[in-house]
C-alpha cells in the first residue's frame, strides 16, 4: 500500500537535467547481452517470429556455405579439363543447375527472413511505445515532479525507434553469423587443423580487441541516447515557454544551454559512430590477415609436403567465406551497442515502480450517498516537508463544501488526496464509510466530476474535448451543458461549430477554455463534484451564469468548491478555512463572519479598496 511513495524525493535533489533520479545510472558499461535478454523476454509472441526468422536465415546461411562448394567443384572440373582437350560441359551444366537451385532456395528463404525480422522489429517497437504510453498513465504523480516531458517523449520516439531498427536485425544477423562462423571453423578443422588454427587465431584476436573496445566505449552510446533525451527536454521546455523566453530576453542563456547539450551530443555521436564504423574495418583487416597467413604457412607446409596443394585452394575459399560472418558479427555487435543504450532508457521507464495494481480490490459500492470523511490525514510531497497536518473533517451527503484559504494553504492538495492522485502519509479518507484505499482508483475517480485549476484541452474538435472519454453522450446534452456555461454561442460562431479543431492555443482565451472544461464536467455527470478554482479566468458575469448552471449540477450532490472569489461560495453549507495545511475555521458564511476570524479577514480583504 505504501508503494507509490517509492519515488518520494529526499530533500536536496535538485537539478533533474543532470540526469534525474531513477535513470541516472552512472556511465557504467552495461553488458548488452542483458539488453537482448531483457528484450527477448519482453517481446512475447514476437519472439517466435524472430526465432522463425533466425531459423530461415540460418538455413539460408548454411546453403550459402554449400553454394561455394559447388562453385569450387565447377572450377575444379574446368581446371581438370584444361589441356585434356575435352569439350564436354555436361557435368558442369548439371553442377551449375544444382548450384542455381541452391541459390534460388536461399534467395527465397532470405527474402522471407528479410520481411519477418524487420516486421517483427517494427511490431516490437510498436509494443514498446504502447507499453511506455500505458506506463506513463500508471506512474505515481511524483515521478513527473522530476522528469521532463521532452525526455520521456524521446524514449517513446528516438529510443523505441533505435530498438525497432536494431533488435531483430542485429539479433538475427548475430545468430546467422555465428552459425556461419562455427560452420566454417568446423569445416576448416576437418580439412586441416593447423591451417584452421592459423585462420581462427587472428579472428579470435580481433574479437578480443572488439570486446575490449565495446566495453570501453559503451558509455558513448549511453551518453548519446541520454544527450538526445536532454536535448528533447530542453527543446520542449523552451518552445513551451517561448513567450517568457522572449519577454525576458533569455534567448542567449537558452542558446548557451542548448549549445552545451548540442556539443555533448556531437561529442558522443561522433565517437559512437566512429566506433560502430570501425569494427567492420577491423574485422576486414583480420580477414585479410588470415588469408595471408594461410598462404604463407600453407606454402611452407606444402614445401614440407605435409599437405597437398588442393588443401590450400580449399582454404583460400574458406578464408574468404570466413570473412562474411566476421564482418556480420562485428556489424551486429555495433548495432547492439546502440540498441542496448536505448533499451536501458526504455526499461528504466518501464520498470519504474508503478501505482499499485488494484485489480484485486473488489469492494462493491452501491449508490453513492456522498458522505466524505477526512480522518486525521497528513501528507508531504517531499519527505520531511509536511504540508497537510492532521486534517479531519466530515461532509454530510449532499452538502456543498467550500475550501478557502490563502494561496498555498493546501486546498488543492486536499483534493489531490481525495482523488488519490497522491496517497496520504497517515490517516484515512472514507467515502460512504468505505476507506478510499479499499477502492480502486478508477472507482474513486468515477465518483467525482472534476474541474481543475490547470485548463487542459487536447488537439481535437470541440466536441471530442467535451465528450472526452464518454462518446455515448448525446449532442443535446452537450449543447445544453455549453449553453449552461455560456459558451454555446461562441462555439457556434467558430468556423466549424462543434467540429472546429482546437489546436495548440489558437484563438481560445483562457476564460473560454475554462468554460469548456466546466461544460465537460457537467456532461460527465458524477455523484460528487470538485471545482478547483474552476472560474478564475472567467469574467464575473459569466461566472454568475456558470454558478447557476452548477447549482443544478450540484443539487443534492456532495460538492467541493475551491475558490478565491468568496462571493461565489457564500451559500455553501459549510466553509472550511485552511491555513498552512490546517483547518482554521469551519462554518457557514454568516457564522464565520460573525466570528470575526480568518475568514472575516479574507472576506473583507476583497472590499478593502472600496472604502
Amino acid at each position, binding site marked *: 500500500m505504501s508503494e507509490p511513495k517509492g519515488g518520494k524525493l529526499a530533500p536536496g535533489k535538485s537539478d533533474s537535467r543532470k540526469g534525474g533520479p531513477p535513470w541516472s545510472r552512472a556511465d557504467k558499461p552495461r553488458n548488452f547481452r542483458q539488453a537482448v535478454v531483457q528484450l527477448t523476454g519482453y517481446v512475447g509472441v514476437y519472439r517466435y517470429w524472430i526465432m522463425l526468422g533466425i531459423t530461415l536465415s540460418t538455413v539460408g546461411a548454411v546453403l550459402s556455405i554449400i553454394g561455394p562448394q559447388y562453385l569450387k567443384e565447377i572450377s575444379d572440373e574446368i581446371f581438370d579439363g584444361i589441356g585434356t582437350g575435352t569439350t564436354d560441359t555436361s557435368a558442369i551444366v548439371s553442377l551449375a543447375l544444382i548450384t542455381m537451385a541452391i541459390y534460388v532456395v536461399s534467395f527465397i528463404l532470405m527474402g522471407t527472413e528479410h520481411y519477418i525480422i524487420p516486421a517483427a522489429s517494427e511490431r516490437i517497437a510498436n509494443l514498446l511505445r504502447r507499453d511506455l504510453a500505458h506506463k506513463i498513465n500508471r506512474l505515481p504523480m511524483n515521478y513527473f515532479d522530476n522528469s521532463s*516531458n521532452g525526455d520521456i517523449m524521446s524514449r517513446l520516439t528516438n529510443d523505441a525507434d533505435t530498438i525497432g531498427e536494431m533488435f531483430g536485425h542485429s539479433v538475427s544477423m548475430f545468430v546467422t553469423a555465428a552459425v556461419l562462423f562455427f560452420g566454417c571453423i568446423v569445416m576448416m578443422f576437418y580439412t586441416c587443423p593447423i591451417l584452421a588454427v592459423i585462420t581462427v587465431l587472428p579472428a579470435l584476436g580481433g574479437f578480443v580487441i572488439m570486446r575490449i573496445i565495446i566495453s570501453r566505449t559503451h558509455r558513448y552510446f549511453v551518453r548519446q541516447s541520454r544527450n538526445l533525451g536532454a536535448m528533447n527536454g530542453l527543446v520542449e521546455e523552451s518552445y513551451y515557454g517561448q513567450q517568457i523566453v522572449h519577454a525576458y530576453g533569455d534567448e542567449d542563456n537558452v542558446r548557451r544551454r542548448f549549445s552545451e547539450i548540442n556539443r555533448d551530443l556531437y561529442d558522443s555521436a561522433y565517437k559512437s559512430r566512429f566506433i560502430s564504423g570501425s569494427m567492420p574495418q577491423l574485422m576486414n583487416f583480420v580477414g585479410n590477415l588470415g588469408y595471408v597467413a594461410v598462404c604463407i604457412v600453407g606454402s611452407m607446409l606444402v614445401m614440407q609436403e605435409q599437405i597437398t596443394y588442393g588443401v590450400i585452394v580449399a582454404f583460400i575459399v574458406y578464408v574468404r567465406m570466413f570473412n562474411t560472418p566476421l564482418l556480420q558479427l562485428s556489424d551486429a555487435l555495433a548495432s547492439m551497442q546502440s540498441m542496448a543504450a536505448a533499451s536501458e532508457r526504455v526499461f528504466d521507464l518501464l520498470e519504474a515502480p508503478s501505482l499499485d495494481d488494484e485489480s484485486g480490490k473488489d469492494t462493491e459500492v452501491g449508490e453513492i450517498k456522498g458522505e466524505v470523511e477526512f480522518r486525521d490525514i497528513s501528507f508531504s510531497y517531499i519527505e520531511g516537508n509536511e504540508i497537510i497536518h492532521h486534517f479531519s473533517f466530515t461532509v454530510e451527503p449532499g452538502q456543498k463544501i467550500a475550501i478557502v484559504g490563502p494561496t498555498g494553504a493546501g486546498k488543492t492538495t486536499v483534493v489531490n488526496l481525495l482523488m488519490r492522485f497522491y496517497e496520504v502519509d497517515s490517516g484515512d479518507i472514507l467515502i460512504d464509510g468505505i476507506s478510499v484505499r479499499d477502492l480502486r482508483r478508477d472507482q474513486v475517480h468515477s465518483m467525482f466530476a472534476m474541474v481543475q485549476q490547470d485548463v487542459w484541452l487536447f488537439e481535437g474538435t470541440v466536441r471530442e474535448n467535451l465528450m472526452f472519454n464518454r462518446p455515448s453522450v448525446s449532442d443535446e446534452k452537450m449543447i445544453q451543458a455549453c449553453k449552461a456555461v455560456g459558451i454555446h454561442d461562441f462555439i457556434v460562431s467558430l468556423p466549424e461549430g462543434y467540429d472546429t479543431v482546437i489546436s495548440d492555443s489558437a484563438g481560445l482565451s483562457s476564460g473560454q477554455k475554462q468554460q469548456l472544461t466546466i461544460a465537460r464536467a457537467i456532461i460527465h455527470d458524477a455523484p460528487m463534484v470538485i471545482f478547483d478554482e474552476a472560474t478564475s479566468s472567467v469574467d464575473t458575469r459569466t*461566472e454568475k451564469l456558470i454558478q447557476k448552471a452548477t447549482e443544478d449540477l450540484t443539487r443534492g450532490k456532495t460538492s467541493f468548491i475551491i475558490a478565491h472569489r468568496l462571493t461565489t461560495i457564500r451559500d455553501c453549507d459549510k466553509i472550511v478555512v485552511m491555513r498552512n495545511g490546517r483547518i482554521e475555521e469551519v462554518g457557514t458564511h454568516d457564522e464565520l463572519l460573525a466570528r470575526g476570524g480568518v475568514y472575516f479577514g479574507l472576506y473583507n480583504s476583497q472590499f478593502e479598496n472600496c472604502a
Partner: protein
Amino acid sequence: MGSREWTLVILAVILILGQVFMDLAIPDYMSRITDAYLLEDHDTVIQYGIEMIVCAFLSLILSLAVGFILANFAARLGMKIRAAQFDRVQEFSAQDLNRFSIASLITRSTNDVTQIQNFVARGLQVVIKSPILAVWAVSKIHGSSIEWTMVVVGALLALVIVMVVSLRLAIPKFMNIQWLTDAVNRSTRENLEGMRIIRAYDAEEFQESKFKTSNDNLLENNIKAVKYMAFTWPFAQAAMNFVTLGIYWAGAAIIFNAPTAVEQKLLFSDMIVFTSYATMVLSSVIVFIGIFRMLPRALVSMRRVREVVRTEPSVIGGTETEGTEKGTVEFRNVSFTYPGAKRPVLEDISFRAEKGSTFAIIGSTGSGKTTAVNLIERFYDVSSGQVLVDGRDVREYDLAALRRKLGYVPQSAIIFSGSVEMNVNYGYGSESRTQDDIRRALRVAQAESFVEALPEGSQSHISQHGRNISGGQKQRVSIARAVCRDPEIYLLDDTFSALDYRTDRELRNALKEETAGSTVIIVAQRIGTIMDADEILVLDNGREVGRGRHRDLLRTCPEYYDIARSQLTEEELL
C-alpha cells in the same frame, strides 16, 4: 557548411582514393599469390603475402581515418543543423510556433536531424567510395570476354530494375515516417500535460486508444516499407551469386574452346580475376543503391528542417533601442484579427497610459484583453493601427530592447524546471542582479514566506510546469520574475486571479510602493483589483465600451456596472 567542413570532406575523398587503391591491390595480390603457387615459388608467396598485409594494414589505417573524419563531419553537421534550427525557432512568434506545432518542432529538432546525421555518417563514405571503386574495378576488367561482360551487365540491369521498383514503392512510406512520428510525439505530450484530468476522468484508456491510433499508423506504414524492401537485399546477394555462377558457366565453354592448354590456363586465371573484380563492381553498386534506402527518410527530414530554417519569423525587430518618452504605452486605432479567424479580436482600440500610471483593462471572457497585452509585447503584430511604447511604434524597436522595458506576467504562469531563484532571476541581465534583488522580488510578489518554507529556500527545485507547487505559488513566482527585472512598464495579464484576495491586495500594495514610477498595464476580472486604477478600459467583443475611472464608469458604462454588480454589494456600488 563552413570551410572546415569542406576541408574534412576533401581530406576524406583523398584518403578514400588511397583506400580504394589498396582495396583493389588486394585481389591483385591474391591472384599473384595463386599464380605463385601454380609455379610453386614459395619465396614469392611470402614476399607477396607480406606486401598484401602491408596493403591491408594501410587500408585499415586509411579506412579508420576516413571513418573518423566522416563520423566527425556527420556529427558536426548534425550539431550545426540543430543549432541553426533552434536559433530560428527562437525567433519565431507565437503564430509561427502554432503553425508548425510544438510537437512537430520537437521531432524536427532531434529525430529529423538524427536521420540526416546517420545518413551522412553511413552514406557519405559509400557515396564517395562506391563509384570510385566500381569505375576502377571496371577499368581493370575492361576488354575481357564479351560473354562475361554480358553476364555482369545483365545482373546489373536486373539489380537496378529491382531496386528502382522497390524504392519507388517504399519511398512514399519512408517519407511518411517523420510525420507519423510527429503524431506519436503529439499524443505523448498531450498525455503528459493532461495527466491529472486524464486520471480524474479515468480516461487513461481513452488517451491510450488515441495513442494507439498514431502508434499503429506508424507501424502500418513502416511494415509496408519493410515489405517493399524485403527482397532487395537477398536479391542483391543472389545477383552476386548468379554472376559468379554465370561467369564460370560461360567460362567453361570459353576455356574449352581455346586451342592450347597454355591459353586455357591463362583464361582460367583471367576468369578468377574477372570474378573477383566483377563481384567488387556489383557489391559497390549494391551498397550504393542500398544507401538509397536511407535517402528518402533523410531527404524528408532535410526538407522538414529546411522548412523551419527557411521560415522567416512573422515578427521581425527594428533597430531602435530607445523611445522618445519614458514609461508610456499608447494604442492608436488598433485592430487585430488572428490569422484565419473570421472576426477581429480587437477593433479600433485607442488609449494612452502615462508614466507611473495604472491602466486597467477589464471585460468579459474572450473580449480581447490578453490580445491587447500580446500586442504590446509584440508577440503578434497589429492588423491595423499602431501600438507605441515610450512614444515609438513597437515595430521600430529592436525586439530585445523593447522587451527589456517590459515586465510581462502571463495569465497562466510559465515555470521552468530549475531552482526558484533561476525562475525569478531570469533572462537578460540576470547575472548582474544580486541576492537582495531576488529577495526583494520574492517579497513584493508575496512569495517570500512560501519560498522560505521550502526545504532549500530559493535554491529548491521546481519541476517543469511547476508541477510540485500550487497554482497561486506558481503565479507569485511568475510575478516575482517581473519584479526582479525592475521594468519601466509592467504588463500583468490577469495575473491575480489565481491569488486569494488578501494576497492580491498585499501584492498590489507592495508593488505600488516598490515600483513607484513604473507604468502598470493590468488585465483583470476582479473589480477590486483595478478599481483604483488611473484609467480603466472596458472591452466587449473586442470593442471599447467604456473608458474612465471606476466611479465614472459605474454611471456611464452599463457593461462595467454589470461586472461590478456581480462582485460588489449594493452599498459598495454607490
